[in-house]
């Protein structure tokens, strides 16, 4: 599948305060976040963000609380205006949009899922799911069959006439996801969508998202402060710190080659056997003659291979991807990859 860039963020800056444009000059002259706050009482929200978001992928933006994740995602549909920079969606700069074009973008191209669900408390689950249709002025009766299907798809069949306050947090967020899906938008923005949920429910919801994504191939921008969640979901991982991008790329690559002590610290507590995939640690096919013990998939995680080997470090596996041999994995390589 050919990747195309869906959203492209270029040199994006956001400064909070009374005089952002004046501060912008100081920042371009090299003033840092701390000094900006101390000397000028302005908050640096984002600095020089450059990110490409590929269509059909889940791009995860990760960072600690206060690192500017929410600020960044709100620039994509311009809930927040940047101080400087460009945001291209499908090749068009959304910062050039007028009120009407922006509204069309929000109605048709992007949907959003929120940390605190943000459902309409006085409307039923079905009515909440039909929010997009309502906003676009579509016939509610006509869309309700479709919306019921989405509710079923997120595991809420039978709850269509309930009110949000009658549902648990996890179920409310399912409504939030159904509402986003029912808008048929190509892009889904999810701002810490699962951060308010209990761990077990969270795992369920992550699985639900992956399952839906296998079918729908949406362009998803997912925000989280949890590295496990990020590694589980991400096709492309962007790590934010104090408003700038510390490192971005393939999550496996970041895990194996952290570029910054900040990320090393993050990565240290990860269960690497579960997160790392065979394809990231295997050796490419090079014609060496090895004694092959068996076959593993490139997308398997290391945990699975360890279980397969029964702990025998002399095993060596042939790695296949789509019925094609792509490399070999020796257990010694695998074990080495388990320590950072």
């Amino acid at each position, binding site marked *: 599948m050919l990747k195309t860039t869906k959203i492209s963020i270029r040199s994006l800056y956001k400064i909070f305060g009374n005089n952002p444009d004046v501060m912008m000059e100081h920042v371009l002259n090299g003033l840092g976040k701390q000094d900006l706050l101390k000397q000028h009482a302005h908050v640096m929200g984002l600095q020089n963000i450059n990110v490409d978001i590929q269509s059909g992928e889940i791009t995860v933006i990760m960072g600690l609380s206060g690192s500017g994740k929410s600020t960044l995602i709100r620039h994509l*549909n311009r*809930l927040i205006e940047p101080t400087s920079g460009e945001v291209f969606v499908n090749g068009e700069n959304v910062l050039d949009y007028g009120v009407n074009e922006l*509204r*069309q*973008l*929000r*109605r*048709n191209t*992007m*949907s*959003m899922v*929120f940390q*605190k669900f*943000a*459902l*309409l*408390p*006085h409307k039923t689950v079905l009515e909440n799911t039909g*929010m*997009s249709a*309502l*906003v*676009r002025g579509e016939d509610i009766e006509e869309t309700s069959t479709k919306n019921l299907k989405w509710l079923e798809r997120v595991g809420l069949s039978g709850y269509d006439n309930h*009110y949000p*306050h009658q549902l648990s947090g996890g179920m409310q967020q399912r409504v939030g996801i159904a509402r986003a899906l029912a*808008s048929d938008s190509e892009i889904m*923005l999810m701002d810490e969508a699962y951060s308010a949920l209990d761990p077990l429910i969270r795992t369920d919801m992550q699985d639900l998202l992956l399952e839906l994504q296998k079918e729908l191939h949406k362009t998803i921008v997912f925000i989280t402060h949890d590295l496990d969640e990020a590694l589980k979901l991400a096709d492309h991982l962007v790590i934010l710190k104090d408003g700038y991008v510390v490192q971005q790329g393939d999550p496996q690559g970041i895990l194996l080659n952290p570029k910054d002590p900040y990320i090393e610290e993050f990565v240290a507590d990860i269960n690497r056997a579960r997160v790392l995939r065979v394809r990231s640690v295997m050796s490419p096919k090079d014609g060496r003659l090895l004694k092959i013990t068996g076959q593993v998939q490139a997308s398997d995680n290391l945990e699975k291979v360890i279980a397969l080997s029964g702990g025998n470090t002399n095993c060596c596996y042939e790695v296949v991807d789509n019925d094609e041999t792509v490399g070999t994995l020796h257990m010694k390589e695998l074990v080495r990859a388990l320590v950072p």
Partner: protein
Amino acid sequence: MAFYDNVFTSVGLSDWCKSESEGNLLTMSDFMSKSGQNEVSKIEGTSFWDIPFPSLDALNASCPAIARTRDMTSGLEDFFLATKDAIKFVLDPMTQPLSWALDASLEIFVAMPWFVLIPALAVFAFYVARSIAIVGLVLATFMFFAFIDHYLHAVQTLSIITVCTVICVVIGLPLGVLMSKSNVFKKTMIPILDMLQTLPAFVYLVPLIFLFSVTESKLYGIAIILYAIVPIMRLTDLGIRLVDKDVIEAADAYGMNSRQKLINVQLPLAMPNIMAGLNQTIMMALSLVVIASLVSAPGLGVLVLRGIRNLELGVGLVAGFCIVMLAILLDRVSKAALSRINTTQN
């Protein structure tokens, strides 16, 4: 000689003072001194402790060109009388529908036989409150009114409250929304609302009596509306400003325009506060409709007034008791409607 004579002479204004000395209205103290019972004008030897405040009257004694307080109030009155026709010319046609509405509503309420109106009220109460207990309260209260022959007066009071409350909502709700949208408008409205709320109820009636004849029902209608519109405006504004920011953000993220946001998000989510405002508006309308019987508003207030005027203690007390019952009734019905809204949210 008056106390401040020297002041005017020293700044060289004594000629100007004398130039217009005659032809002013008599004040009470003038009158007293003319009849020789007063010693105010004997200034020589005024002790330190008797130095008068340089008020209009004191200054006038030394310098007749300065107006007295009495002249000021009568001037205001003249001004009011002079502009009265102009104000009336604008205000009269504008407020005429209010008279019609009040009169028509009174006629309808009174013309309806009791065996139609009482069940109708019960059905209405059930519709807004969805509670059998409330319906029972409505039935019991009005049958009690009817039993002690206060039914007609109670219904008249209810009719006036209904009309005025409806108008308060029709005018106050949009103004409240406007206040929530515009900080400038809110800042200009707040002092006006503060004034309307703090003025004693009687003060409303003073300028209105000047403008309209006491036989016109809009006289008390306007007084009630001015008094009772404040809470619905305040609480509409507050309610909309308190709507959960996250939900507003969701509405924006899905591309709602401001009208869609108002109808689908802000007003429904502000509804508990708006209903609390409506409850207060109703209660304030009730309190003023009683006082407005001074200016010929019909209803239970008339009986209270009769009790005071003729010292008919029993009449006054029973009417007062009926007002309390009506107040409880209106409060319970509107609070029940409010709590019904609260349970469908959150």
